[in-house]
């Protein structure tokens, strides 16, 4: 039941979006953060064959079944996290980046991230003044069960709260910021370890950027209507 084939005609020069009918899984192995269970991963492969040509393109990605929720606790004002319905006490560390000359390597990522897991951490926070971390970083967070809090490129010191106060309206080109943000979300969104997108460090992004980010990052209503999904199946 975990193999599905669909036939499609695509007009010349067209760029389309296609959603497969949902694949049903009964009690799949769930992905859990470090210290709460196994980090079960499945291999998802997608291929497209074209009549008269053969296999035209293929794509694959490890995938973990997990549901991450977080809300602001009205009493403490802190953020409460749940994974697969279970509350989780977050033990995390700050992350700027591997190397100041951007000598980023899988080996270094694997070592650094396994070290965090060995320290019994279950979250890494990627600070807004550093990088949107790379797929290799997330791959090892998927494997070792480190949830990732990923900030966009706004910091209090540089954007409106530093001394001297500067850039109160963030970067000059808001469209470029959102273009980069959307592309970064598409680059990283399939990793089970990705737990939270955050506008910036100690600062809310400018109103237009913040509104666009919130709007772009909302879960699509399609996934919030259980009866609709079950009926469609």
């Amino acid at each position, binding site marked *: 039941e*975990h193999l*599905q*084939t*669909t036939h499609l*005609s*695509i*007009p*010349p*020069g*067209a*760029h*389309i*979006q296609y*959603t497969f009918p*949902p*694949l049903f899984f*009964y*009690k799949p*192995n769930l992905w859990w953060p470090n210290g709460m269970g196994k980090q079960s*991963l*499945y*291999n*998802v*492969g*997608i291929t*497209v*064959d074209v*009549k008269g*040509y053969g*296999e*035209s*393109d*293929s794509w694959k*990605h490890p*995938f973990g079944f*997990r*549901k991450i929720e977080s809300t602001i606790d009205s009493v403490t004002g802190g953020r409460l996290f749940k994974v*697969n*319905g279970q509350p989780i006490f977050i033990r995390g560390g700050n992350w700027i980046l591997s190397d100041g*000359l*951007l*000598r*980023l390597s899988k080996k270094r990522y694997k070592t650094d991230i396994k070290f965090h897991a060995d320290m019994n951490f279950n979250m890494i926070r990627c600070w807004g*003044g550093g990088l949107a971390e790379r797929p290799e970083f997330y791959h090892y967070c998927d494997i070792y069960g480190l949830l990732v809090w990923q900030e966009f490129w706004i*910091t209090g*010191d*540089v954007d409106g709260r*530093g001394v001297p106060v*500067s*850039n109160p309206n*963030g*970067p*000059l080109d808001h469209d*470029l910021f959102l273009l*980069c943000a959307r592309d970064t979300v598409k*680059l990283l969104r*399939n990793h089970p370890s990705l737990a939270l997108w955050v506008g910036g460090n100690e600062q809310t992004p400018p109103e237009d950027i913040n509104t666009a980010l919130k709007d772009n990052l909302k879960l699509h209503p399609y*996934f919030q209507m259980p009866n609709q*999904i079950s009926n469609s*199946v």
Partner: protein
Amino acid sequence: MVEIGKTKLDSGWIAARSTEIEKTGVQLTTTHAPTLETSPWMEAVVPGTVLGTLLKNKLIPDPFYGLENEAIIDIADSGREYYTFWFFTTFQCSMSGNQHVDLNFRAINYSAEVYLNGHKKVLSKGMFLRQSIDITDFLQPDGQNLLVVLVHPPDHPGKIPPEGGQGGDHEIGKDVAAHYVEGWDWMTPIRDRNTGIWDEVSVSVTGPVKITDPHLVASFFDHYERVYLHSTVELENRNAWVAECTLNIQVTTELEGNVCLV
């Protein structure tokens, strides 16, 4: 027919400072291809930054030791041209019939012009942006291709006040780039502001239809017993005629060892 798939371009790169090269990108990728033996070209680190390449060639001390970072001229004092670099490489790629080839940059800091076999393409600015160029029509018939990229630093590299501080003079915040490069309380400034082709470069071959950015979402019911995997893909038909496609999605899990359950 060349096999479909991605090939990384992560070796055989050479680099030179822009102010030391008179040739244009068109000349460098047609009549005047540089070699490692041609001064001032040097072995380059790609993916990596300009400082990474200078360090590899021992043209700067290692900024991680002692106060060596003080010995490296800051971009605020040298000017942006000093850290504006050409990165050159060659790659073998010829395709047949109905195939398409893309040149992919996963991240460049901060802006760049790409030249391939004499064809020019100006990329978007931004440190965190993937960019792909359909190079199918630019490839050499004999398969031997010349590629050069002129990489410019951030537009606002800023200046580090004598007292240092978080984010220097904050100018870097005007760009869409990492802020730490102007220095912080835990970090000295990065002299080239991390200018360079700092992430993966690859060439990918596809047939007439290309898959882009699939999105996988799981939904859970009945206490995680009933689970659905929703998959959305973007497909692009680069043919001049209708493509009759068969789309497959397959989910496998690796059991212990390399036994696969489908």
